[in-house]
């Protein structure tokens, strides 16, 4: 047993040491500057940065419920009790929908990130190119396993097997994106990695150069359980008012969620602190306020979840808010690491070349406002439908009908404006 532990620690250490190889740096600053796209950013980089942080946070909530939901499903299916079986199916449903949302929400942070940190992302992705492409393949396979688990949910052993495979693929996908993000933080090592000290060019795309187990655990594994725990508290809160739902079951699920969130939250906090200790000293991250604010956010969140243990339904919304604040602070910390790493070489997104234009930001803003009206209506109707007992039909109120008409109107208006502007431009340029 001791040998196994030793080998395991050695394995982790070796991964961490890969990131510590002697670097053939050259003029890293000049390289980063040359790599920044000559087209420049079409809007203020700080806006891209803020949007990137906010949208990453939204994306991660559903990444966590995708993976965490499957953890609960797998454990639930191993239990004979009816409530566990029921919970397993509910969290499987949560996971299935969450993967879709995680995918679609993941587009925005990567988009904004690539505008201001293009040197980091494109280099790191190309260093491990095949893995980066396999991210998509593994995600596809993993998601089909989850659908397989959903279609076989009445056969627990088969569904559990599918869920195990599904979560393994999602964890692998998480591993790949972790590697790409982590490698991106070490520009001084890229050339050394890619050329093996100048002996070759690693064009195969099969290499993985850096991994940090604590970062992986603290950014993916522990939060998955903790955030899904908070979702179970919300599950309890949301369905309590439905007369056809079993209150005892809901209370049990809520308490299970609160307990899981607390224990996993402790793991999250510990792995987060351990990760902080592995950050190289020359980044100055250990003395940064952003670093310790992220720790504080987790501590405060753990406090709220701790006080939720007796009445999870009542504390579901405060826990959600506390969790969101903690996650936001972690998103800020994660972004701060990029700033700290690249600052060593004089790279700053705030001095990124600017080719300012206002029409496309206006398009985004207009589309976002249109979308918000539509989301408000659609999600509200979904919320009401979920509250309606089985076999009954929810009849929309007068106000809801008005909101519905408004959402159809704004969406059609958007399409007319979009196509209309296009016609004017085409006639002007080619007419």
């Amino acid at each position, binding site marked *: 047993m001791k040998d196994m532990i030793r080998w395991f620690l050695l394995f982790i250490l070796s991964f961490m040491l890969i990131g510590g190889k002697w670097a053939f740096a050259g003029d890293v600053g000049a390289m980063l500057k040359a790599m920044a796209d000559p087209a420049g950013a079409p809007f203020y980089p700080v806006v891209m940065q803020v949007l990137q942080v906010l949208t990453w946070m939204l994306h991660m909530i559903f990444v966590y419920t995708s993976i965490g939901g499957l953890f609960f499903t797998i454990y639930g299916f191993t239990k004979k009790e009816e409530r566990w079986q029921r919970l397993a199916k509910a969290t499987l449903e949560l996971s299935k929908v969450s993967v879709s949302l995680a995918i679609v929400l993941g587009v925005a942070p990567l988009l904004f990130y690539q505008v201001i940190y293009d040197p980091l992302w*494109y280099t790191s992705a190309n260093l491990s190119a095949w893995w980066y492409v396999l991210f998509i393949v593994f995600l596809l396979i993993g998601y089909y396993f989850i659908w397989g688990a959903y279609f076989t949910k009445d056969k627990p052993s088969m569904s559990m097997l599918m869920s195990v495979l599904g979560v393994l693929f999602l964890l692998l996908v998480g591993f790949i994106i972790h590697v790409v993000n982590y490698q991106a933080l070490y520009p001084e090592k890229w050339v050394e990695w890619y050329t093996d000290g100048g002996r070759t060019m690693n064009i195969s795309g099969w290499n993985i150069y850096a991994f940090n187990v604590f970062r992986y655990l603290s950014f993916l594994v522990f939060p998955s359980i903790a955030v899904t725990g908070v979702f179970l508290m919300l599950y309890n809160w949301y369905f309590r008012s439905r007369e056809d739902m079993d209150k005892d079951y809901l209370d049990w699920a809520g308490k299970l969620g609160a307990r899981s969130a607390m224990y996993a939250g402790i793991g999250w906090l510990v792995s987060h602190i351990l990760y902080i200790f592995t950050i190289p000293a020359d980044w100055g991250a250990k003395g940064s306020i952003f670093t310790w604010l992220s720790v504080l956010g987790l501590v405060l969140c753990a406090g709220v979840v701790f006080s939720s243990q007796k009445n999870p339904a009542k504390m579901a919304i405060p826990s959600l808010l506390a969790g969101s604040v903690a996650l936001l602070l972690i998103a800020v910390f994660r972004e701060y690491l990029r700033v700290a790493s690249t600052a060593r070489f004089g790279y700053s997104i705030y001095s990124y070349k600017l080719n300012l234009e206002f029409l496309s930001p206006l398009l985004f803003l207009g589309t976002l406002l249109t979308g918000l009206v539509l989301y408000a209506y659609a999600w509200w109707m979904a919320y009401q*439908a979920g509250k309606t007992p089985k076999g009954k039909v929810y009849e929309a109120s007068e106000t809801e009908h008005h909101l519905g008409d408004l959402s159809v109107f704004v969406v059609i208006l958007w399409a007319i404006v979009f196509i209309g502007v296009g016609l004017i431009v085409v006639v002007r340029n080619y007419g």
Partner: protein
Amino acid sequence: MDVLGFYPMWYVPVVGSGFVIAIIAAIHVMASHTSVGASILLAYLATKAYRENQPQIYDYIKKYLLGLLVFSYVSGSITGPGIWFSATVVNPRGISALIHNFVWVWAAEWVWFIAEVTLVYILFYTLGKIDQKSWLRLAWTFAISSWATMYIIVGILSFMLSPGHEKWFTTGSILDAFYNKNYFPHLLERTSYMFAIAGTVGLAIAALMKKDLPEKVYKDIVKTLSYWGIGGIVFGLMFFAWYVSTLPERSHVILEKVIPLYLKLPIMLIILVVLAHFVLAAVRPQAVRFWMAYPIYALIFFMGVYPEEKIRETIRKPYVAGEFVWVNQIISRDVPAKGIKSEVPVIDQKGLLTVNPFVPEGLKKINSQNEIMAGKAIAILQCSGCHNVTGSTGLRPFGQKFAGMTDPNAVYGFLTSYLRDNHPPYMPKLVGTDEEIKALSAYIAHMISKGGSVSAKIEVPNTSAEAKKEVQP
């Protein structure tokens, strides 16, 4: 350090890294066209169910929605970012050029993605749980949101082919870039064909439900889908003709002289098959069979979408974005409005190996020891986007293109007179110093003399530290 912003190169022997994009993109086009077409067809059918009081149509819609969720919203939503991911490693500078011009346009598309993905789940879960009128509204907003994603991506795809107008290079205006010459024909062509694609899979689903639906409802659904499908094909052909008329001159040359018949012919055939299938279904709805409709749907992928995507990617050459980034990622012309400078003069003067930060120091200065490896590195950096540069099979292979040319001087003569000084319209000009072109010639002659196939591994005689010492004694 005098460098240009190149990234580490990824090389996939034989098929080429572009093949990875092609596969992912074709799956995505199939899934996305199915889902966008279906969103409008289903909203139309839901309106029919509501107005004509035919609630059984909802059973059909529910089944179709489940099919969409399992196929389009798994494969489609993953392969969409998949195109982006694969482009990131195949052509990082190309995708970067697009993102730096269109980030807000893509962000607007993202708003519709969220609407689309959340609405498909909401429609599936709330069917029969909320009143029909509210559900119908959601169905139409879903349809327009889905279609809006196409409005947006088509503008970017069209810009990749060409900004359409010289004006953009001096105005840099997003409007000039986005609403370019072939935007509308491209959008209308895709819009038309998507009804044929969604209609075909719709017939397969209807055939599966034949026994569960009243005969009148079944016939109504099949006829509706068939009429939309026939319309889609007819209008698709018309808009295709318009689309071709808006292509740049070089694309016409490629279309006529470079694109092989084995890519063009299947498209014509599958269009005829799909049209005949719809006509049959419209005349004799009872004759529709799952075993007939579903294979036709699969054939649309192999005979229609994949060749079409291949052709579309090829007629864009030698560019990958906006007629200023070549397919080998070199910026080939100035864009004054954006302050972008052509990299060709710098590369011709200093050398491709010198300006690429990811080339080992030991290859930057060419000598008799490293000449072959330097030539191989140049081939991979400059030519592997469109050629298998280490073998005789697969993607336009060097082994075949230079067959019999074992004399470096002969290769050099060909490279300089044909590819550097008088390059064809679909290929980028061969760039680099004369010394580099000689190294490339030496490598090609070497690989041909080895039977036209060599390992892709690059071995550098000196480490970077040693090479640096040599340069700075």
